[in-house]
């Protein structure tokens, strides 16, 4: 029988525990302290004053409007793509998959630059667009385009996983009940994947709300038209810390509420969403 070396074990066990606690505490503080910094920066009274300011309000409304629009467009364009990726195999699927993931990993300023190169005056479609009398850059529409570009992958990814995780037995049952592919998708796959779709839409919206780099590069920074909350926070740093803190706090609170709500509904950000009814429980 091998006797454990008591001292070495003790060192490892206690040392490991203390070390893990210390490092975890450090990380917790690293995230919590800056947030506390925002909260403690403004008194509630100052914050209310700031929220009454027409400029601040304008920024908030612009952000709300553009991010919601971007989410709706992402749903409209993203769900069919997610459905195809989840249910079909076709040549070039790998390429499409990489393309769909790309916006999540390229630097936002590069994304903004790329958008300019496509839809800007000198871009690929610039000539066509201006012939039609459309000029996209430096408009609110450009903000939405930038937000969709940056946030739609979150929706496509989550929705695709949700569609793919629907128990095939339900799809088989639908097929024997005269349901064609499209009918089955709309009446079985879509509702069963709903938790994933909600999670995906929530992430997509949060990402759109926080979009900075692509927006400032492609849409510019014009009060009332393209200056969203993140842009305004950056600008206000230099002139009005109270206003910057107020806007930041609004974003932080909304994000926290969103995450807490998703957790409450069982929709973890990284945990795969709960599969809806994995077969009717036998017996009961």
């Amino acid at each position, binding site marked *: 029988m091998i006797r454990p070396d008591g001292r070495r074990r003790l060192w490892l066990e206690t040392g490991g525990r203390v070390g893990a606690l210390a490092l975890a505490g450090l990380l917790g503080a690293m995230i919590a302290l800056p947030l506390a910094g925002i909260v403690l920066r403004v008194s509630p009274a100052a914050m209310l004053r700031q929220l009454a300011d027409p400029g601040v309000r304008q920024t908030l409304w612009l952000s709300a409007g553009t991010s919601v629009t971007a989410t709706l467009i992402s749903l409209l364009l993203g769900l069919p793509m997610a459905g195809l990726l989840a249910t079909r195999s076709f040549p070039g699927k790998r390429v499409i998959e990489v393309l769909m993931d790309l916006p999540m990993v390229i630097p936002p300023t590069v994304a903004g630059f790329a958008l300019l190169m496509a839809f800007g005056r000198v871009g690929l479609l610039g000539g066509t667009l201006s012939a039609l009398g459309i000029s996209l850059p430096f408009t609110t529409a450009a903000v939405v385009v930038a937000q969709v570009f940056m946030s739609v992958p979150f929706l496509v990814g989550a929705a695709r996983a949700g569609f793919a995780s629907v*128990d095939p*037995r*339900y799809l*088989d*049952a*639908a*097929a*024997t*009940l*005269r*349901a*064609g592919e499209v*009918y089955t998708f709309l*009446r*079985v796959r879509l*509702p*069963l994947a*709903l938790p994933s779709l909600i999670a995906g839409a929530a992430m997509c919206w949060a990402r759109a709300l926080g979009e900075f780099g692509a927006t400032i590069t492609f849409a510019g920074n014009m009060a009332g038209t393209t200056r969203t909350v993140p842009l305004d926070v950056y600008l206000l740093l230099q002139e009005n810390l109270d206003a910057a803190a107020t806007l930041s706090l609004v974003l932080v609170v909304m994000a926290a509420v969103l995450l807490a709500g998703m957790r409450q509904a069982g929709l973890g950000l990284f945990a795969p969403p709960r599969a*809806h*009814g994995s*077969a*009717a*429980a*036998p*017996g*009961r």
Partner: protein
Amino acid sequence: MLTAALQRRVGEFALECELEANAAATLVLVGESGSGKSTVLRLLAGLLRPDAGRVALGNRVWCDTSRAIWVPAPERPVGYVPQDYALFPHLSAAENIAFGLRASGMDRGAVKRRTADLLDRFELTDLAGRRPHDLSGGQQQRVALARALALEPALLLLDEPLSALDVETRHAVRTELKRLLAGLSCVTVLVTHAPMEALLFGDRIAVLDHGRIAQVGDRLSLLREPRTRYVATLLGLNLMPGRVLTRGPGEEVVLATPRGQVMAVGGGPGDDLFVVVSPDQVTLSLEQPAGSARNVLSGEIDEILPEPPYGERLRVVIGPAPAFVAEITARAAAHLGLTVGQRVHASFKATSVAIYA
């Protein structure tokens, strides 16, 4: 009339079988898990394509690989009740039942009326608004049947319809299902792993063993004359090969079997016969029965298995191979104090031995 010839390979497993079924007689496919039963149903429903084969109902061909004919599942008049029912969890009982009607494009009013009829017929009206997870196993099964029958299918496929039920409800539902199936005018194919259910539901029974049909026949022919040891074991019968040693006087026949000499009565011509003894015809004793006219096989107990559902009867497996099985009451076993490894004597009358070529 359903006719099917199916070949399908899934990895190492190869299914190759031919089936026939008509509306008058429920066909039961019985076999152990992994024998390919569910695969057969999926092939018939059109959820799976055979590598080679043909499926036809009456003169309508649904699949013929040699002529490249393929009718996809939604276009086949098939009612399919999968294992565990696969009721749509996001839809109520009524919506589940109406699913096929709506998918087939029936107008709303007609769907409503037909759904109400079905709810009534399956005694589900009070449960119409409940989701599947709020229904008991028996209720779920009724919804699944109503959903499958809503479209008046020409072929009904039932995959282990009782396996999702707990023991208490199973008995009641079994009787209910039997009555329902008897009243249907469509061709019905039912799959089960339980020989008891096969015998109950099967007007014709096909025994599936490793993707092949081991035997097809009606209830009695299977019970009386199992053709392979697999079929016999599945049905819980003792089957041994026997060679005729002497005949007479009268109808008496003495046969040599791997477990020793067996005396039987009757039997057809031929010298190599199957010898079948139903386990419930066998009595056990600890002492060698003296001076009895009965057949006696002796051996040591390999296993004592309670019989489902309640275990009030026990199957006593007596070695050495080929094992001989006696079915006795738990009470009798307790009285004898039977334990594994004990030497026992199994006796049965010559008249309870079936022999056939």
